[in-house]
């Protein structure tokens, strides 16, 4: 009887003991967002998209990101292949969550910069398995969109990680993001999400993203490979980063409509 009581007590108290050992989910999210990503960055991004039959499309881009105070501006210019060369995407991401982001897309076939809706953030970015929100957040996370809890620890690719379960704050946000739940494996030392599993709006597995080849560049931890696998379509996307440069000053003029039109 005594043993049964002890067993029951252990069973009831273990989760809270475990939880006490683990950092709070919001704290982990804050650590992720506090990680240094440089005032600005220039990098080459090669996108490899493969469908379930193995057919591959490869797109090469040059990406620029720069902070203007709390405001983050990102511009991506397509270099190849020919049929989408000179396409360019730009986003102004404001610190004030009450203000919608501003997004533009330059389509060379029309020779016009088109304003696009920022509430479309759960839509997939130009044929990839990453959403516009994924592209905007890069290696950061959105604090306001989710409630979080830490549910465990696990080794991923030989690194200790905390497992954080994030749930959209409400149905409208879930619909915007296209996810009902996200589970992230966050590196316990350098606060990079090494793996993330996304559930669709019907709570079925949607996609998994792996962040790999994490190396320091000019003193800043940088992912050189991000792989996304869509479980519904069996389509995969690899983002391969190269020529990462945090030190070269980027002209403010690069983040303008006229720069989008003109290209690199």
């Amino acid at each position, binding site marked *: 009887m005594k043993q049964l009581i002890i067993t029951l007590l252990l069973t009831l108290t273990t989760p809270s003991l475990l939880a006490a050992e683990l950092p709070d989910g919001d704290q982990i999210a804050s650590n992720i967002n506090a990680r240094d990503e440089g005032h600005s960055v220039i990098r080459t991004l090669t996108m490899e998209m493969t469908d379930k039959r193995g057919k591959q499309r490869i797109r090469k881009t040059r990406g620029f990101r720069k902070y203007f105070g709390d405001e983050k501006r990102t511009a991506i210019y397509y270099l190849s292949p020919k*049929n*989408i060369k000179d396409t360019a995407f730009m986003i102004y991401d404001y610190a004030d969550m009450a203000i*919608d982001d501003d997004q533009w897309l330059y389509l060379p076939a029309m020779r016009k910069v088109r304003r696009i809706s920022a509430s479309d953030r759960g839509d997939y970015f130009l044929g990839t398995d990453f959403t516009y929100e994924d592209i905007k957040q890069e290696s950061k996370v959105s604090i306001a969109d989710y409630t979080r809890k830490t549910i465990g620890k696990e080794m991923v690719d030989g690194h200790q990680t905390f497992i954080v379960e994030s749930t959209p704050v409400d149905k409208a946000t879930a619909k915007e993001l296209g996810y009902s739940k996200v589970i992230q494996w966050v590196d316990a030392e350098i606060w990079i999400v090494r793996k993330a599993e996304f559930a669709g709006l019907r709570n079925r597995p949607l996609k998994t993203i792996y962040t790999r080849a994490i190396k320091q560049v000019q003193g800043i931890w940088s992912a050189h490979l991000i792989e996304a696998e869509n479980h519904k379509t069996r389509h995969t996307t690899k983002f391969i980063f190269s020529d990462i440069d945090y030190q070269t000053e980027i*002209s403010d003029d690069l983040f303008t409509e006229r720069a989008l039109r003109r290209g690199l």
Partner: protein
Amino acid sequence: MTCLQKGRCVVGYEEPPVPPPITLPGSSFPRDHRKHLWCRKKGSSGWALILFATAMMLISTMATAEISTSLTANIEWGYSTEENSTEKLATTLQPEIEIDLGRKIKLTAIGRIRSDAENRIDTTGSTDSELREFYIETEIGRSFLTLGKQQIVWGKADGLKVLDIVNPQSWREFILDDFDNSRTPLWALNSEIPIADLTLQLLWLPDQSYHEYATGSDRYTFTSPRLVPRPPPDVNISMQAAQRPDRTIQDADWGARLATFRKGWDLTLNYLYHYDDRPALLRQLSITTNGPLATITPRYQRSHLIGSSFSNAFGDLTLRGEVGYTTDRYISSNAIADIDGVVKTDELSYVIGLDWFGFSDTFISTQLFQSHLNNHQPGILRDKRNTTITALLRQDFYNETVTAELLWLHNLDLDDGLARPKLSYQMNDNTTLWLGADIFYGDQQGLFGQFKERDRFVSAVEIAL
């Protein structure tokens, strides 16, 4: 979400054109000379030579020039459903070269060779070749400078042209050709100068090229009596050569655009001082021994355009639009009492568009276009007010490798229109296949309805290397 494939993402028209009166009864206009009279000047070889020589000199002084080349090949088959026959079997090759000369100087040259085995779209010849674009881009401080033959695009509307009139347009295939293909590049000096949070664009366009129209038995020659002036019965017509401006400096067009981004709004103010790309068809009536004679002299006229454009996003919606006020338009009139056969009027035009991004991989866009003539006289070939609506529905599938879309344009005044369904498939990075249809309907006096016998299926393969 958004079509990135080169092609008919959006088509457009300028409402309404004033086509050449090649179909006028009794016209003695020599058909072989029509290109000379009506079409834009090909070449402007003097400018090309100067720029080419400059470019070669620059290249020769810079051993480190980076050169990239590409070639786009497009094979298009059009089948007339009304006549059960092939309308066109066209091959277009577009070579392109970009030379990065260093020191922030880049040279771009784009050519086009087009051949049609059917000769029905343009009956004058099966093959044409052209240096489409040839320009040098450079940066001076924070300013951009583009010098050479180029396309300059203004406005926020898709296809419906209020401000996008810097370059003239080819109407050889009505509005069915790609926008990029149908716009006529011009020799121009184009500078963009940042001033605080504004960008001032200054244009100087010494190139006197104008709209190019289908004529005679070309497939898309305008025939509607509301578009083509018709003389009374028994009146002979004498068509004179077009009076084109030909002074490089004095007759150059010029324009300015001020653009800014403020509180979420993309805003521009535009001004263009130019020759209207449509000639005024000046008419002189006389009595001869053979009876009444109408002498028609096409003359290009100066015009001012003052306008503005805007766009902003609100949740799932994007609002965009443009407005333009054009002075000194000369609209043909059938009224015999009208001495010169044209009515001079100003025109106010605007487009308002709403884009909706509510569903994943879906894009829905609608536009309303209206134009108003200030001086509407009896007999004038245009209504005082003209209203057209457009709708575009597009759905992407399979990570944007397959796109289905429907573009619909409808004129509310005459209840005529055009529907353009299209299905495209991106086979790989280089190859795109598409299948579409162009379906005209409505009153044959209308801009669209006049082509209701021109319904067609079109299929194409495009290879970009």
